[in-house]
């Protein structure tokens, strides 16, 4: 018997494509955000409200993943930004190749923000790097406050948690403080914004968060451009 050590990441091919995509996104200064949440958490409604509030001159685009139907893309297209549906036909997550195939021409055109709405699922999308700048987990008050404990992977990997549907708080047995505590017990650094797509609550801080991250991305793209120019000049 011969034991051979391999030490190979199972998703190394996805990671390779994600890194290529990340480089391309950095080159164009595009902020890419990967929204992950359960079916019904309100990801599409959240993006609708976001697109509604974006200044019309913003060069933003959306890819939205679902197992079947183009319903989400139809909803999102009403706001005038380019939207593409990725129908995964059974796959429970988006992978980097799917995203890369759907955004290549957008990157050539130079978009500023790429919103990626993943397939509704708190588990599988967690494993797949899509070349994004940040994962954002969307949790709704109609779900249990123990979701962060049950699905720690996505809460650990997310930079931001959108606690959505807070207009329902008076009507559902959801312990808000406990939900926040649970999320922070998994990821002490996670930022949390409470939102309602019905009342618009929380969208001011969310849009500020978005502006801040866009500015950071632009700055890093400029820096990367200067560095490569310098490197080229030194050759």
């Amino acid at each position, binding site marked *: *018997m*011969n*034991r*051979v*050590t*391999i*030490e*190979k*990441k*199972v*998703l*190394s*091919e*996805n990671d390779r494509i994600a890194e290529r995509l990340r480089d391309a996104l950095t080159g164009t200064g595009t902020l890419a955000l990967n929204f992950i949440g359960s079916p019904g958490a309100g990801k599409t409604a959240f993006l609708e409200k976001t697109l509604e509030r974006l200044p019309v001159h913003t060069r933003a685009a959306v890819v939205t993943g679902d197992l079947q139907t183009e319903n989400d893309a139809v909803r999102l297209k009403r706001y005038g930004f380019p939207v593409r549906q990725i129908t*995964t*036909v*059974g*796959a*429970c*997550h988006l*992978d980097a190749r*799917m995203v890369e195939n759907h955004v290549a021409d957008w990157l050539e055109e130079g978009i500023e923000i790429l919103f990626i709405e993943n397939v509704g699922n708190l*588990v*599988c*999308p*967690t*494993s*797949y790097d899509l070349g994004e700048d940040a994962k954002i987990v969307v949790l709704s008050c109609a779900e249990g406050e123990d979701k962060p404990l049950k699905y*720690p*992977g*996505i809460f*650990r*990997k997310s930079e931001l948690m959108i606690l959505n549907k807070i207009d329902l708080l008076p009507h559902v047995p959801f312990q808000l403080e406990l939900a926040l505590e649970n999320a922070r017990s998994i990821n002490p650094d996670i930022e949390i914004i409470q939102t309602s797509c019905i009342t618009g609550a929380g969208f001011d801080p969310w849009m500020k968060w978005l502006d801040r991250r866009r500015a950071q991305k632009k700055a890093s793209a400029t820096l990367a451009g200067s560095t490569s120019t310098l490197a080229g000049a030194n050759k």
Partner: protein
Amino acid sequence: MHEMGIASSVLEAVHRESHRYPGQRATKVGLRIGEYAGVDQESLRFCFEVLAKELNQGTLELEIDYRPASDDLAISFIELEDTEEEPPPSRAGFTANPGSEAGGESSETASSVRKAKV
């Protein structure tokens, strides 16, 4: 159910690796799975067994090393043993599952994987 894609990727890696050792066949593969990797172990075992049988590797054993507080998802080793048989011809068929990592050959496994996913 991305466990089917992961199982497919693991089997592809075993297939590639074992081809580097003519006259030997893989008997076991070791996989490290972190708590935060988003992989259900039982589901993965089931998918692995189904796919391994499809690929005539039904005797291949999967050893899972579970790591708490980690998001690791990696193949750590394979074990090989000598075989007196001629190495079987390369069998295509690790791609096409939308969640799979594999590279692009064929169809037979792909369709069986698709059926399994439905």
